[in-house]
């Protein structure tokens, strides 16, 4: 209840104070929110290792051109002093425009991962997600995916953090 009140107050500040409210919002958000959320993107670089094998590594996404593989990492942390309810943390991430999800790359420890091919209206597992193509209902291809959803099962205790990730290729 306390969180709900604080968040309502934050919205009121934005409405009343305009641009200054945005600044204040950030301050209030840090102080009052129970959970923080952050996302980053890195480039998956292929390189020839000393053992002669071609391997991949993550590098800063400074130069990105069509065909590059990217890894998005979403971090969440319970920064409050109250546990977040079991099974209530749901992360929803629309796959960025101009990218295609790379099959099998969605990851999230302790989460149930599902996908949508209709902009987030309906979700299903990667294996069972269906779309209609040429009048037939078929298993969706990664290029059909529009949204990924992670549902974190356990309680998120105060101070506990987790992350989810997925890879795409830039069209």
């Amino acid at each position, binding site marked *: *209840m306390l*969180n*709900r009140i604080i*968040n309502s107050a*934050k919205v009121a500040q934005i409405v009343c104070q305009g641009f200054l409210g945005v600044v204040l919002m950030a301050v209030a958000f840090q102080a009052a*929110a*129970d*959970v*923080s*959320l*952050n*996302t*980053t*993107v890195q480039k*998956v670089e*292929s390189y020839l290792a000393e053992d002669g094998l*071609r391997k*991949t590594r993550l590098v*800063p*996404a*400074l*130069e*990105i*051109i*069509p*065909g590059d*593989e990217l890894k*998005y990492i*979403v971090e*969440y942390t319970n920064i409050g002093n*109250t*546990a*977040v*309810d079991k099974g*209530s*943390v*749901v*992360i*929803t*991430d*629309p796959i*960025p*425009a*101009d*990218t*295609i999800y*790379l*099959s*099998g*790359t969605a990851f999230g420890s302790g989460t149930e991962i599902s996908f949508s091919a209709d902009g987030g209206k309906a979700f299903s597992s990667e294996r069972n997600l269906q779309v209609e193509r040429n009048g037939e209902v078929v298993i969706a*291809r*990664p*290029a059909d995916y529009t949204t990924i959803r992670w549902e974190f099962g356990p309680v*998120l205790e105060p101070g506990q953090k987790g992350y989810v990730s997925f*890879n795409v*290729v*830039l*069209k």
Partner: protein
Amino acid sequence: MMYFNGKGRLAMAFVFLFGTGGVLAAGTTAGTDVTNSVTLDYQVNSIDQTQLTTSVSFEVDRALSVVVSTADADVVNVAPGETNVLLSFDVTNTSNDDMDLLLGVVDQNATAVAGFTNAGPGVFDGTSVKLVLDVNANGVYDVVGDTDLVVAANHYSLPSGDTVPDTPVRIFLVADVPLTAVNADQATYSLVAAVANGVNVIQGDTNGHITLGGVATDVVDDITLVQDIFADNVLTSAEDGSYNFVTSTASAVQDIVSNGQHSDSAAFVVSSAALTIEKVVQVIWDPINGYHFAGDNDDTPSTNNPKAIPGSILMYVVGVQNGAGANAATDVQIMDDLSEDLVEGIGTTTEIPAAILKPDNVTFAGLGLIDVPNAADASQLTIRDCAGVVITAPFIVGDPEVSRNIGTCTAGQTGIIVYFVTVK
């Protein structure tokens, strides 16, 4: 269940995105802002909390790449003296942005270029070499309508706006063939294209790669800026030439990856007809000694040994042969001016022999043994054209010139004319 490692996954994505053609398609336009917005919902004590959102963005950089490929399936056969002969190239901007392109021509001379190994004994240089833009993209050089590309320094510029991504532009290399070129001579040219800003070649990218003659610039990578990256790293073109667009000079070095340029080659080969002509003459009768041959269509000589005295009859055979591997020669015309001391046919100045006894074959010094048509008639001129068809034709009364068309002679074919004259 199937598992793929990272490389396999990306390979599959490439197949889906770009097909298997081997050329990187343009892809997402440079400057596009790609934003990932993520939301998080949660509950505390069974009460929904305000949804959290966050996002991260980047700008798509310029992946600079150009592909040159010849549109000629094989060497282009030309003839000495032929004008406006064409080599055809398709130049495609495979960058993810509209690009200016510069073009350079490398005359490979005797360098063996893969796919165009110089099989001939020599090379020739085309004259009046120029590059022409196929404006209406009909694959045909329209002297009126197509555009001669502008030469700046020693290279060419494509008109602005012609190089949108993934849209091939047909470029003709137009040249004239010198008359001094001989059969099987070859002229191999490489067309080199480079990415440019306006008329200035892009000398380097933010990855430290430079084009031929370029100078690297220390550019700090910035996720929020659209930066240049040479993306011709998947192109292999070891057979091609390079061009230094900084100094505007052709280079002997071959094209390499990640230098913002690409090239391909095509070649002219001289393939002219190789005609040889020979003439033999035989006294076949004189009014004193009689016949040379023992019988008609018989190569066996008699012991009469007729001489070329007034009133004697001579047989002329003129042979024309097109050499092996040569181009077909059309409308081959044999002309032979007769001496004023000779008269076409027989019996005009002396008695007429009982019969004309001619040989079955004659032997040329170069053409070898050639069959004489049995139907050859001393009163007429006999033609066996290159296709082997025998025609008899009357002499033209009063014309001292023998002139007959033996048609088209393809490689290795021989045509002859046979006629008889009387010595005045």
